[in-house]
């Protein structure tokens, strides 16, 4: 219980730090990015939108920083992030449309990578010194140091260019109307194939390595030896005795990686022009749409914080040994 409260306290402090960082960054930077933005959009958007930005960033209203901060906190708490200048609609609407694409593509791929990687890691450690164990760890050490965007580029180059079954841009074909029907669903799945493959190739290695290494440590434990002495079948020792215990650190890592789904989306979505959270973040950054950028950064950070809190609590529930330490 004390451990949980401690973690919850840390969550609140970190959340406050992130919200404040989001407030301070555009005001702290050299030059005046906000004024640049205003100048750029004057004449392109309605007067009302500009005024909204002026109020939000405290320009010409001569409000003190403290008042601005207070207003900003209130707006953030109400989920009122202002108007996106590039999309000419409320930021919350832009995000609401984008977030599902990101969760669908990257969320599902993260889960797949975790399941596959953990299984390979279990088998690799169990047959230590076997061919799987000999090939996979070094291969994945190398693939995990390959920049993700380059894998994506190569996939586009080697597969997407020659095979029209693997489209390389967008979440669905241009001109189709989104709807819950079979042609649209297959279209979406087709568009997800290449980006998903790119993510899988670069992220699975980490799961394999950590699972293998904890599994190797656990296999040396006395209770595994005991299970062997009892003459239990190999698969039972492997899954029920060793893997179950070796999973614990990986499981909290998995909970955390779910939080990083949104932040991991940036490069994937840029490369494949996939209209999710990361795509809009870059769009906002390039076009100085700071209201959109601030809201997306906050969303991404909150997702990570919640996931970390969940991972901490999950570990405490599943692994009694960690409870006393906190």
């Amino acid at each position, binding site marked *: 219980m004390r451990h949980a409260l401690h973690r919850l306290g840390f969550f609140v402090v970190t959340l406050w730090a992130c919200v404040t960082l989001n407030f301070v960054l555009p005001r702290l930077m050299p030059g005046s990015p906000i004024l640049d933005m205003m100048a750029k959009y004057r004449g392109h958007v309605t007067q009302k939108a500009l005024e909204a930005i002026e109020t939000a960033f405290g320009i010409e209203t001569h409000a003190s920083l403290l008042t601005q901060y207070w207003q900003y906190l209130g707006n953030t708490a109400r989920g009122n992030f202002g108007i996106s200048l590039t999309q000419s609609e409320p930021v919350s609407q832009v995000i609401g449309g984008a977030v599902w694409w990101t969760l669908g593509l990257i969320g599902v791929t993260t889960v797949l990578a975790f399941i596959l990687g953990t299984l390979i890691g279990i088998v690799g450690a169990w047959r230590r010194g076997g061919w799987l164990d000999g090939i996979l760890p070094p291969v994945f050490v190398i693939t995990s140091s390959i920049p993700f965007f380059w894998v994506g*580029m190569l996939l586009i180059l080697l597969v997407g260019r020659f095979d029209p079954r693997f489209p390389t841009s967008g979440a669905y074909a241009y001109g189709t109307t989104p709807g819950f029907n079979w042609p649209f669903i297959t279209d979406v799945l087709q568009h997800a194939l290449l980006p998903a493959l790119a993510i899988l190739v670069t992220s699975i290695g980490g799961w394999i390595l950590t699972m293998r290494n904890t599994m190797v440590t656990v296999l040396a434990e006395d209770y595994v030896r005991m299970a062997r002495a009892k003459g239990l079948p190999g698969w039972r020792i492997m899954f029920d005795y060793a893997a179950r215990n070796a999973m614990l650190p990986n499981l909290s890592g998995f909970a955390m990686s779910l939080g990083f789904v949104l932040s991991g989306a940036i490069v994937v979505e840029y490369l494949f022009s996939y209209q999710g959270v990361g795509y809009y973040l870059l769009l906002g950054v390039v076009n100085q749409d700071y209201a959109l950028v601030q809201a997306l950064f906050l969303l991404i950070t909150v997702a990570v914080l919640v996931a970390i809190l969940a991972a901490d609590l999950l570990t405490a529930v599943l692994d009694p040994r960690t409870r006393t330490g906190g």
Partner: protein
Amino acid sequence: MATMQIPAGAGQAPEAGLPGMPGSAGTASERAAGRIWRAVKSNKKALTGAIILLLFVIMAIIPGQIAHDPPQAFIYGRSLGPSAQHLLGTTPSGQDIFAQVIWGARETLIIALVSGLLSTLLSMIMGIGAAYLGGWWDNGLNLITDILLVIPTFPLLIVIISYYPHSSLIPLIAVLVITGYSYGARQLRAEALSLRNRDFLEAARVRGERRFYIIFVEIIPSMTSLIMAVFLGTAVYNVIAAATLQFIGFGDPNSLSWGTMLYWAENGEALQTGQYLWAIAPGLCIALLGAAFALLNYAFDEIGNPALQRVKLTRRRHSPPWRIRAERAR
């Protein structure tokens, strides 16, 4: 990652046994250096990594001796295929791609090494400082580190860089250092905490050494392998993060580095026009450099964590009966 480790042959016991020996400082760090060298020599992975890294360092120091063409002059035929004159062909604006790859090593390595070193230094200050000073210092420094640890780095990197009108190397490196030090600081703090009550530090305290001396001469040398691992880990991350930022277009488009090359390759539609090597070569170099750091890091992990490095051959020779049975059952 190397979490808990007692470096084999760290030689802490003799140090504690000879209080007040002058010159023990030099030998401690020399011994650490020797230990690392022996470890690299005897580990195939580490040796491979070290050789790749050395090749890139040579490329970065004398690029002009390797590639004779000027890397940024638009003086050759456009979109030429590979030939004896242009090993990797030319870009659509008439630059020699091979020369660009060779010259690109310099900036890429500078970013990796400088940001890696600075962020390791910051990790050491924040991590070891927190552990050794203890009390409120520990709480305060640790809270800052923890917060930076959980804020997603790459979005933060992009948001900060986006507020800079002119992108150059210095803000890029500064942001990489600030956003990348926290993980290392956590590891170093944990290790320093476990060392805090060891006999050899107690001995140093009893013989009245100053804090400064204890931290720099006693604690840091005995943590060399973990510090190396932290440095290599951040270097891998920084190579990739910097290249990604440059690829997305947040770098200086006139600079000469592999990330910027890929940016131009994508914008110049290298893939559509068939200039495959323009896209493949710089990416391969980034991957190799990253792999070099990762291989060295992997090796240090094995050195630091003896559980991972038992040799497989001994197992068959001394297989206990239950294991043979278990193997047959499979």
